[in-house]
């Protein structure tokens, strides 16, 4: 298995108390008059799988986008692996960003490249791997996601589910410590969802990669999560292990939301 990630052995992650790999403090994000995140504090322990649930517009995706530096907070600080991601100089941002990978709702594969080059491009140009090393790593990852025979295909020749599995392989090829999954099955035809979720379950089980996952797939959230955060209007309404959140939620808002989606 090649998707092992460097993990600090000193970190014995105990939920809520361990050294946190990802930490957001007092983060506020506004779009115009609309406050998407309102003084948010939250952290993720190394190696944990955290799922963010909640109604659309509650700020879940914004958290992932902030961590990927696709947008910046209006206030607050973001720390990853003990180092400041925001606010921080551009050079430092580039360094820390190497620890983070993201899979998008709409895959965002590069249509002008083959599947193989989609996966090898960043390891070669960013991490400085040789072409051979990068291709070997890409082949292993394509094996992992069940697409070993597609390395010469173009993204446009693949189904949505296959494209998303390539996108997962592409993100893992950078060996990130944190993998951000942004509604990765929302744009897929229903029959293709299971294949993608199986791959992610496999990765969650067999690696110590930290996962931060925004999803509407409650069954999947229950399966892989160590912790589930229920969001509403830019705040964490309720947090806890999946058995608790899905089985016996304390907050009325959580119950309402779950009864609406389940």
């Amino acid at each position: 298995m090649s998707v092992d990630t460097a993990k600090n052995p000193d970190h014995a992650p105990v939920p809520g108390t361990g050294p946190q790999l990802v930490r957001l403090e007092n983060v506020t994000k506004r779009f115009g008059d609309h406050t998407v995140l309102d003084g948010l504090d939250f952290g993720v322990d190394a190696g944990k799988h955290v799922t963010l649930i909640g109604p659309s517009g509650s700020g879940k995706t914004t958290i992932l986008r902030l961590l990927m530096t696709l947008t910046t907070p209006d206030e607050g600080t973001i720390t990853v692996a003990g180092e400041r991601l925001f606010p921080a100089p551009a050079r430092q941002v580039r360094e820390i960003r190497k620890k983070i990978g993201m899979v998008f709702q709409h895959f965002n594969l590069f249509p002008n490249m083959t599947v193989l080059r989609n996966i090898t491009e960043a390891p070669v140009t960013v991490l400085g791997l040789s072409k051979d090393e990068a291709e070997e790593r890409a082949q292993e990852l394509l094996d992992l996601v069940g697409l070993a025979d597609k390395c010469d295909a173009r993204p446009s020749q693949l189904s949505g589910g296959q494209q998303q599995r390539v996108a997962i392989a592409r993100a893992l090829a950078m060996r990130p410590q944190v993998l951000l999954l942004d509604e990765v099955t929302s744009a897929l035809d229903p029959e293709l969802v299971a294949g993608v979720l199986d791959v992610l379950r496999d990765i969650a089980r067999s690696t110590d990669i930290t996962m931060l996952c925004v999803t509407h797939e409650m069954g999947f959230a229950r399966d892989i999560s160590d912790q589930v955060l229920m969001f509403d209007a830019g705040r964490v309404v309720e947090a806890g292990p999946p058995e608790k959140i899905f089985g016996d939620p304390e907050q009325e808002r959580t119950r309402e939301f779950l009864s609406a989606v389940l």
Partner: protein
Amino acid sequence: MNWDWGAVRDFMPHFRDGLLVTLQALALGSVISFALGLVWALLMRAPTRWVRWPVGAVTEFVRNTPLLVQLFFLFYVLPEWGLTFSALTTGVFAIGLHYSTYTMQVYRAGIEAVPAGQWEAATALNLPRRRTWTAVILPQAIRRVVPALGNYVISMLKDTPMLMAITVLEMLGQARLYSQQHFRFTEPLTVIGVAFILVSYLASLLLRALERRLVR
């Protein structure tokens, strides 16, 4: 009006010379306008307005003044400042420059048409800015704009006769010269008219082939 095949035959050597000059002007003008237009388009995305503003002003000026005026200016005024080029060089540069102010807009549209998700994926993979442009954005943008650039090649072809005004003997220049010397207008003008249609048809075939190769 009588048609004289003898005059056609007589005109042929001059026609060939003119055709070669027209093709040269077209090919080099295209290359210059494609390259310079891309440079303008990229400079217009510079983070500082101290780059964007002058580039915007100059290109706006060039786009909104007639090519013929620019030809005269470059050919008759530049030498006064000690810059002298051959008529053909001046003409090729003028056409390339003039059309680059159009192709820059084509490139801009092509660049803006690349989905935001492509930039985001490049950021997520930590690709350096330059690499994002050369490996991700431009290949997709340019693929999209080849048909629009092709239209400007045809336009440029139809503007090459303007080079006659600065003494370049392209097809129209040769036809006029022949006409004035032999008092035969019908044959040379018909020959170059047909040649213009053929060249633009061939150019469009070439561009369509290029398009098919790129759009895969």
